[in-house]
Every structure is written in C-alpha cells, then in structure tokens.
C-alpha cells in the first residue's frame, strides 16, 4: 500500500472546473427555476421532467448522450468547431459541460422552491410602487430568495465536485488534463495507489460535508430574521 498523500493538482483542477461549471450554469439555471416557479405554459411538465432527468438517468448514459452531442459529428461539437474552432470532448471543457448538466437539477429544484416561497403579493406591490420588472427581480424576488439560491448553488457545486459517470465518458480520464478527484480515486485504486486514493477521499468528504452543512444552514435560516 502506498503512503497517504493528497494529490493537490487534481484537487485544485477539480475545484476550478466545478466553480466554472456552477458560474456558467447559474444564470441559465436560475432563469429556468424562476420560469418554472412563476409561469404556466404548455409543455411545462415536459420541461420539468427534462430538467430532472439527469438525477435519475444513469450518469454514464447522460455522458453517452453528451458524447454524441459534443463529438466531432454531433451538433454541439460542430457548433463549437465552427464558432470557436475548438474541440470539446476529452478536454477540460467537456468536464465543465458534464458537471453543468449533472448539477442542473439540484440548482433548479432548490432555487425553484426558494422562488415559490417569495410572496407574489410583494412583487405586485413593488410594481404598483413604480418598479420595472427588472427592479422587482433585483430588489424583491432575488433578495428574498437569496438563501435558497445560495443553497442551490452550493449543492450544485458539491454535485459537480463528485461527478464521475458522465465525465469519464465525455472527457475521459486523462491525467493532468481531464482527471478530477472522482476519476483520480478510480485510477489510484485501479493502480494500487491506495494511499493517494484515501487522501482524495478525505478531501472530497470534507468538501461535501462543508457544502451540504452550509446549504442546510442557509436553507433553514429565514431571510427576514
């Protein structure tokens, strides 16, 4: 058995791509959560189902879909090639995309509940006081939903940190390029580097514990205390 060690470059890489994934996901995910919380429209149930699908679909299956979509011959892959001249699959960008897709349901579901808890009456009164829709959103809706939004972002981040199944299909497991904490643990165990695997296990347990604990605290504290 190898000595206990923490593979810091892998930890650092994982933290960076997970943070980027959540940052890129946030505007889209929050808009989606607001849409689902506040509007009725045809096809809403279908959209809700699609959003939650990554929660229950085998992550590897989601990864396969992403691989087909983002590959050289897939529509996403072609678009990335045409617009930015870049490949996505088997690069760190694919890690980001896999993390975004897998974290989406957690962010949308948590933020949606937070938006639903904002009394629509307060938004209506803000409008009668002369506020535009943008001002209602930035001064009433978002501040009142802020704890739930923060909790949702944190949960999404925690989910992204642990992403394995989709990542390994669409980004591979290329040491120094696409290997994350989760895929590194797999590598280390496969190659008998147990000490390194335990080091990453300790780090991911600490990160996950911190994220869940903080999000629980945020969700339970009332905004208007």
């Amino acid at each position, binding site marked *: 058995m190898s000595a206990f060690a923490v593979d810091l470059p892998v930890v650092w890489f994982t933290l960076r791509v997970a943070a980027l994934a959540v940052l890129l996901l946030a505007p889209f995910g929050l808009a989606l959560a607001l849409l689902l919380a506040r509007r009725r429209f045809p096809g809403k149930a279908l959209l809700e189902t699609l959003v939650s699908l990554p929660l229950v679909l085998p992550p590897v299956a989601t990864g396969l879909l992403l691989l087909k979509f983002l590959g050289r011959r897939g529509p996403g892959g072609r678009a990335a090639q045409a617009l930015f001249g870049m490949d996505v699959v088997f690069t760190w960008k694919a890690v980001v995309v896999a993390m975004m897709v897998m974290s989406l349901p957690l962010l949308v579901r948590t933020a949606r509940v937070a938006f639903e808890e904002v009394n629509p009456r*307060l938004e209506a009164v*803000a*409008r009668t006081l*002369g*506020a535009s829709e943008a001002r209602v959103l930035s001064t009433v809706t978002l*501040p009142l939903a802020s704890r739930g939004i923060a909790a949702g972002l944190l949960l999404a981040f925690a989910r992204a940190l642990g992403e394995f199944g989709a990542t390994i299909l669409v980004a591979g497991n290329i040491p120094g390029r696409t290997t994350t904490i989760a895929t590194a643990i797999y590598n280390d165990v496969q190659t008998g580097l147990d000490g390194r695997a335990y080091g990453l296990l300790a780090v991911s347990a600490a990160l996950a514990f911190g994220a869940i604990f903080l999000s629980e605290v945020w969700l339970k504290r009332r*905004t*208007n205390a």
Partner: protein
Amino acid sequence: MTLSLEGLRLPLTPFALELDATLSAHVTAVFGPSGAGKTSLLEAVAGLRHPERGRIVLSGRVLDDAARGVRVPPRQRAVGYVTQDDSLFPHLSVAGNLRYGAGRGLAERPALAEDRVVDVLGLSLLLDRRPSTLSGGERRRVALGRALLSAPEILLLDEPLSGLDRVLKDRVLEHLLKVKAAFPLPILYVTHEAAEVVALADEVVILESGRVAALGPPGEIFQGVAHVSSA
C-alpha cells in the same frame, strides 16, 4: 379627481363584479360583507386584475379599456395600494420600505416630501427598524407612508384597520384622519365596518355580491339601509 368605472365587469367566483359608478369624493368608502368583491375592485384599479368588459378612467386617464385592449401596467398607474396584509418588504428597513416607490416623481405630480409623510404618520423613531419588529399598527402606518411617498394620484386602502385591537384601531384611524387632512389625495377605502365609514368617508359605495347596492353620503345611506349592522 374622478374615478370612473364604466360598465365594468370583472369575473370572480362565484359571481362577477359589475359596476357603473363615478366616484369623486375625497374619501370614498367601499363597504360590504367579505366576499362582495371589494378587494377585487381595488386590484382592478391597481392594475393587478383586468376587467373583461368596460373602462377604468382616473382623472381623464384611461387605465383599462377592455374593448380597445388598453391595459396600463401597475407601475405606470400612480396608485398607492395598501394591501390588507400590508405587504412590507421584510428584507428592507422601514426607511427602505418608505423610499421604495419614492422618486418615481411623475412630472406632473411632484413627490410628497418624506419628512412630512414621516411626521404625519409618526414614523420618525421607526426608520431603522425591520418590519418584523413592528407592531400591527406600526406596520399599517409604514405601508401607508410607502404608498404616499410613491407620488400616487389615488390611495387604495384595503381594510387598513382589520386585525388590529381596539386601541391600535383608534390610533391608526387617527393617523388616517391626519393623512386625509394633510394631503388632498383621493382615497378609495375598503372596509366592512360601518363605524370606519362614518368616521372617515365623504361618500360610500355599498357592494353586495359584486353589484352597487347604494351610493351616496354615509349619513343618508346608512339611514336607509336596515341591515348595516349585519354587514
């Protein structure tokens, strides 16, 4: 100021609100049992609900015209709407609440001075407090001040004394009388308490199941209505 409700029809359950009335008193009370459509009428004037038929015209300004598809959005109506639950913003201080709609300052109607509103409503010691630390009466006064400071052309008050105990009721009523005396702003005042109508209103509309049962000065109306006390 004149508020004209012309052939207005608002579908509610289980009936429809159907009104044809011109209101031009300083304080007009809308009086009736709960479920008569009083709050829906305020919401229609505030633009939070839209009539299926008819027009709402405030001092010559068409706010709603169902036939022509006119629907002025709430933020452009210049109405100071105080809801029954006061709807204070819980994350803002009293001062933050008061100033939320201030500065809208429609060109033709300069905003009221904050000092004066704070003074008339006795809010000067509350400015830094959070709504959750206020009493029921204080909350009503803050909501009233917030509506006043948004430079409205009409105040819409939905049962501003409901849910308060007798002492607080009297205190808020005193402040309402002060507001009436200090600002020439027309007020549409929804209530189901005859005593409030008599104390405050110059004219009263009696609503029953969505229709105007009577309209006139409170003194005359209440003499002719036998079942006032049961409302």
